[in-house]
């Protein structure tokens, strides 16, 4: 009997766990290790952050789902990886520390035959001085609790505006190396929508700040869609919605310090600025969760299997090269660690070979560019492909059998710009492929037949249906496998 250990139960980890349990769970053991007791449909956190949904609407308890499916669930955080075993254990293992209140602080050794690193990111608020809910200066929508806090702060601002006090809102990214511009994009327009509905829009000044060199970059180097006989840049459409909704923007910005009511930033041209605010939601940069890895002798070998940013190295080409020499082939296909063939990384946890957006820095040498997004649909598809490979390797295959390259898959993304059954809107976007391939698609790097976008109520309906559909799927209710990733 083989044991597959999955560290993390977000979109990618839970997808891998669900399918593996379904495919091999009767004969083999699937163990999920995650510090959280609940699964969170993260895309809907933005609605929690504006008071349109509750924390309970976007989460559910994982333990009963895994118990019903037959998988082993350990509410614990992984501490270290020992791919060669150790002094007292010949098999590879990880060490974990329980966060389950009934065993809190207890440590355990957990051997594995296959290991999937699906830990997602560490929300690295510490990278920017004064950033984050703990500092009390800015709010976040990265977790359900953060979003609940953001909603309370927003409601307080609305009350002030109703009492005649003008408020300044600053929303975007809190560091020059952030990803997830899409979440901040959704949040700023949902805030604007809520303020309009509350009748206080004229009392609010709303400003976007981000590390993108142009609006609509979204960490994927922007995209083009067909409109009016042209392949039109996402810059046009992004700028259009900001202008239409009277939202100002500061781009190419690295927020380097936040104080109460003030965000200090450096721009791509090297100039410095300060933006005042009454309410700020700034996304933090992501980093790997900070595991340590040790060899058989107990020596630290973290840098052998993890990249400097803490993400796990997989079958990508990590050779440093200039933007002009980037190729689709640089990107991983099977997500297997090159040294330890029984270790895989999925979702945010794998180390990308390089950015997707063009690297940029200020004359002061400060890098200011979005890092590659790998959440949502690609994250789930990578999780499923790795699950298929492990299933087949347990069955006798000597190498991964399935691939999910971000240069060969598309992504469908629906970004909310206001939640209401009749007056709400969202931007529905697809890109194909996610990482532009200028050799295969000369000119704009993507297939225009499968890359499109439009804003409207229909997209909002889709966004809302996705909320219920993916929560249903993640709870492994009847027919869950019919819902695509």
């Amino acid at each position: 009997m083989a044991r597959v250990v999955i560290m993390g139960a977000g979109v990618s980890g839970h997808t891998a766990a669900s399918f593996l349990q379904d495919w091999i769970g009767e004969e083999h053991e699937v163990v999920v290790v995650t510090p959280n007791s609940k699964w969170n449909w993260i895309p809907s956190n933005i609605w929690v952050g504006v008071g349109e949904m509750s924390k309970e609407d976007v989460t559910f308890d994982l333990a009963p789902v895994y118990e019903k499916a037959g998988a082993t669930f350990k509410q614990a955080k992984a501490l270290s990886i020992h791919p060669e075993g150790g002094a007292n254990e010949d098999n590879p293992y990880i060490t974990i520390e329980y966060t389950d209140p009934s065993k809190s602080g207890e440590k355990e050794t957990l051997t594995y035959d296959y290991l999937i690193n699906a830990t997602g990111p560490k929300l690295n608020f510490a990278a920017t001085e004064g950033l984050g809910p703990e500092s009390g200066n800015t709010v976040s929508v990265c977790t359900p609790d953060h979003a609940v806090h953001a909603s309370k702060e927003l409601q307080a601002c609305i009350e002030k505006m109703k009492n005649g006090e003008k408020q300044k809102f600053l929303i975007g990214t809190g560091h020059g190396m952030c990803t997830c511009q899409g979440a901040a994009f959704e949040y700023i327009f949902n805030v604007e929508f809520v303020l309009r509905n509350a009748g206080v829009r004229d009392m609010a000044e709303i400003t976007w700040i981000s590390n993108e060199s142009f609006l609509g970059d979204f960490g994927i180097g922007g995209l083009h869609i067909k409109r009016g006989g042209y392949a039109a840049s996402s810059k046009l459409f992004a700028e259009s919605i900001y202008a239409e909704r009277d939202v100002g923007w500061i781009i190419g910005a690295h927020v380097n310090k936040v104080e109460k009511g003030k965000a200090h930033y450096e721009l791509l041209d090297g100039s410095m600025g300060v933006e005042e605010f009454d309410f700020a939601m700034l996304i933090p940069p992501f980093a790997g969760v900070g595991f340590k890895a040790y060899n058989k002798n107990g020596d630290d070998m973290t840098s052998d299997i993890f990249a400097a940013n803490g993400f796990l190295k997989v079958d990508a080409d990590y050779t440093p090269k200039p933007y002009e020499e980037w190729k689709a082939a640089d990107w991983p296909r099977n997500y297997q660690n090159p040294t330890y063939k029984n270790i895989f990384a999925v979702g945010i946890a794998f180390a990308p070979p390089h950015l997707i957006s063009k690297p940029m820095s200020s004359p002061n040498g400060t890098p200011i560019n979005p890092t590659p997004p790998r959440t949502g649909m690609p994250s789930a598809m990578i999780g499923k492909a790795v699950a298929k490979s492990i299933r087949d390797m347990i069955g006798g295959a000597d190498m991964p059998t399935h691939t999910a390259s971000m240069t060969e898959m598309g992504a469908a993304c629906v970004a909310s710009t206001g939640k209401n059954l009749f007056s709400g809107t969202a931007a529905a976007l697809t890109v194909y492929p996610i990482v532009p391939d200028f050799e295969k698609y000369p000119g704009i790097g993507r297939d225009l037949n499968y890359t499109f976008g439009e804003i409207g109520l229909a997209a909002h309906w889709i966004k809302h249906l996705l909320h219920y559909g993916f929560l249903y799927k993640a709870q492994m209710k009847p027919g869950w496998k019919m819902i695509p990733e």
Partner: protein
Amino acid sequence: MATEEKSQTSHVKHIEPYTAEFETMVPTGMVKFFRTCVIWQFVRFIALNIKMAIVIFKSHK
């Protein structure tokens, strides 16, 4: 005294000339109307689902 005439973009708040906001495109009133016109959006709902399903299934191949 000049009278204000209704234009196709009168739904948009004044945009200061020679700013980045002025240099981009803004939707006309008709585009705005169709974005939340339930009948038209029902049609778009079907069309979008088909278009997205094609991309999703192409990616799953």
